[in-house]
């Protein structure tokens, strides 16, 4: 069940606690800012000079493969690690040396770290009790938090009596009840099965809308990041490769890594022939390709042209050639995979390059494996990768 059951009352009652003294409109000060942050663990260079600004009330994701330094960044924001170099700011104040228990942040741990010897109520009340709030207030806030995660009546349950999804929600309630300025989440849905994960993604996003707190979300799952985030920082090997909205990083990847990490892409190696304000003319083997204008494309240089599979089309005999800007590649269909809404075609060009093309499954005439085809795309659907 989603938390939507109780409707607006719940949100209102929770917000009445959460929002006091905290403006909902994004103010100029970033909630979190990292400036040239490095982290060394002994001889391991885990984070290599990261700078980023996370705005207030933003849902910001750190996306990258395992071991790229996501957790380390989160732990530096929450205060469990100190940057070896660089500065972490929280609401504009230098926070490098502030211990975790004095920060206005709360972290949801990768394995949740719920207290096994306490029941649900005591887990959620943990932070409030440390702040010595009066009992009735604690009771009210715990109740509001339980309503927020739709677990009213679970107060006296013990942690081991909860399902994975319920534990997940208790962890969220335990953090949010403290009304942190920033909520940090470290792959919180990693342990859940796919169905539950997708459901929790939606719920988390909803919760974030209601409480209006900055969320910094760590994940290695690109779909998850794209579903939930306002902006994504794509990380690799301790670096941030690109920061932008889901659309930005998906449609305008700046590096090969970003292009391949976020979904499938067709990468074509090419040389720049000429370039002007409208377009870039490329040569890939025998083929002449047209890409978008790119200031970095100097004639003679090598670039990679990236085109997403759903942007490729078959140029059939009957199809007007208008709109393809002259991008044409002859290929042979190796395989056609039915994926429900789409059919994914695996192609190989005359020069041996492999391509993926996605077409709607309801297309009038499916192409059979073995068929010779011509593939086309618009010049603005290509992206030039210089790195």
């Amino acid at each position, binding site marked *: 069940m989603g938390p939507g059951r109780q409707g607006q009352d719940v949100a209102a009652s929770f917000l009445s606690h959460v929002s006091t003294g905290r403006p909902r409109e994004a103010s100029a000060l970033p909630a979190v800012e990292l400036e040239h942050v490095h982290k060394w663990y002994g001889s391991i260079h885990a984070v290599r000079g990261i700078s980023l600004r996370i705005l207030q009330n933003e849902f910001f994701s750190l996306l990258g493969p395992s071991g790229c330094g996501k957790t380390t960044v989160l732990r530096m924001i929450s205060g469990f690690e100190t940057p070896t170099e660089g500065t972490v700011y929280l609401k504009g104040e230098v926070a490098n040396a502030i*211990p975790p*228990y004095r920060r206005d942040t709360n*972290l949801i741990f990768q394995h949740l770290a719920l207290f096994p010897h306490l029941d649900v109520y005591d887990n959620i009340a943990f932070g409030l009790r440390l702040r010595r709030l009066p009992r009735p207030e604690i009771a009210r806030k715990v109740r509001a938090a339980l309503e927020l995660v739709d677990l009213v009546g679970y107060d006296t349950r013990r942690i*081991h009596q909860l399902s994975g999804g319920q534990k997940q929600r208790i962890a969220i309630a335990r*953090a949010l009840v403290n009304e942190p300025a920033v909520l940090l989440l470290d792959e919180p849905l990693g342990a859940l099965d796919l169905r539950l994960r997708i459901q929790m993604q939606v719920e988390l996003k909803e919760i974030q809308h209601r409480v209006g707190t900055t969320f910094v979300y760590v994940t290695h799952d690109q779909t998850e990041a794209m579903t939930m985030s306002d902006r994504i920082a794509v990380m690799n090997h301790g670096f941030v490769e690109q920061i932008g909205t889901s659309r930005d990083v998906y449609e305008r990847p700046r590096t090969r890594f970003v292009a391949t990490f976020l979904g499938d892409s067709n990468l074509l190696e090419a040389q720049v022939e000429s370039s002007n304000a409208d377009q870039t003319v490329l040569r890939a083997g025998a083929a002449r390709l047209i890409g978008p204008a790119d200031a970095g494309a100097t004639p003679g240089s090598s670039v990679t042209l990236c085109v997403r599979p759903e942007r490729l089309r078959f140029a059939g005999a009957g199809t007007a050639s208008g709109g393809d800007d002259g991008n044409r590649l002859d290929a042979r269909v190796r395989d056609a995979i039915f994926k429900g809404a789409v059919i994914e075609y695996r192609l190989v060009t005359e020069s041996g390059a492999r391509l993926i093309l996605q077409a709607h499954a309801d297309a009038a005439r499916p192409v059979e494996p073995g068929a010779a085809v011509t593939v086309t795309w618009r010049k603005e659907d290509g992206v030039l990768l210089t790195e």
Partner: protein
Amino acid sequence: MSPTYAATPRGARGRSLALTGLLGPATVFLAAVLLVALCILLVNSAYHFTGTQVQPTLTFEAYRHFFTDPFYAGVVWQEIRLAVTTTAICLVVGYPTAYAITKIRRPGWVIAAYILIFSPLLTSSIVRAYGWLVVLARGGLVNWALLRLHLVAAPVRLLFDVTGVTVALVHVLLPFTVFPILSVLLRTDPALREAAADLGATRLQGFFRITWPLSFPGLYAAAQLTFVLAMNAYVTPQLLGGGRVQVLPLLIYENISDLDWPLAAVEATVLIVLVWATMLGSNLLFRRRLATLEDRR
């Protein structure tokens, strides 16, 4: 009968059979020895002792003697005090020790700490006792130091006294106190302390709200083990008590030497009952607290 179906299915039955096979011999051996020994003990405790030999007639006079002579009440009281003091000191010293070991970062130092803690167990009890003789004697190390520092005017009696026995017992039993605590502390997820800190707990608050309650089962096991071992200690009170520290194991041995089997049997029975009563009593007392911690994680 088709041979295809001859093989028994590997289900719960197969598993329990295997378990019986594995645990059977040890169980039978332990049960037999314990039961037979207990029966012999009980029978003997009811026999008559003439002063030179045991007569197999049921009298119970050994019981009467034990429970009417205040000497024995004094011994039991001294023994309980000794065991309780030893256990208390072991816990007070052992808990911080175990906690500190979990905080050591360097593997080399961890090994060094383990060796140090477990060294008493690697030494023969006789050698250990003589070591303490040297340290605690009138002209021993401790008195020498106390005199040199002008903390005392004349040598103090440490040896052949409860003090010396307690110190030596703490030394031997400390590994048994440290180990259960250490293993529970090591099993506790460090992320829990971080979660507490994240929610606003200082180090001290984190310790008392998370580590301490979660380590209670270890502390409890350590206390029980130490207490039982202290109650049953023989060599240490024998060598370092100098006859001034009387405990039941010593009396049992003396009575057996004098061939007074009935009295020895009564003393042994009392010792066993005391230990078991303590264990069961404390289990009942802490049942609820332990139950809530059992199903952690």
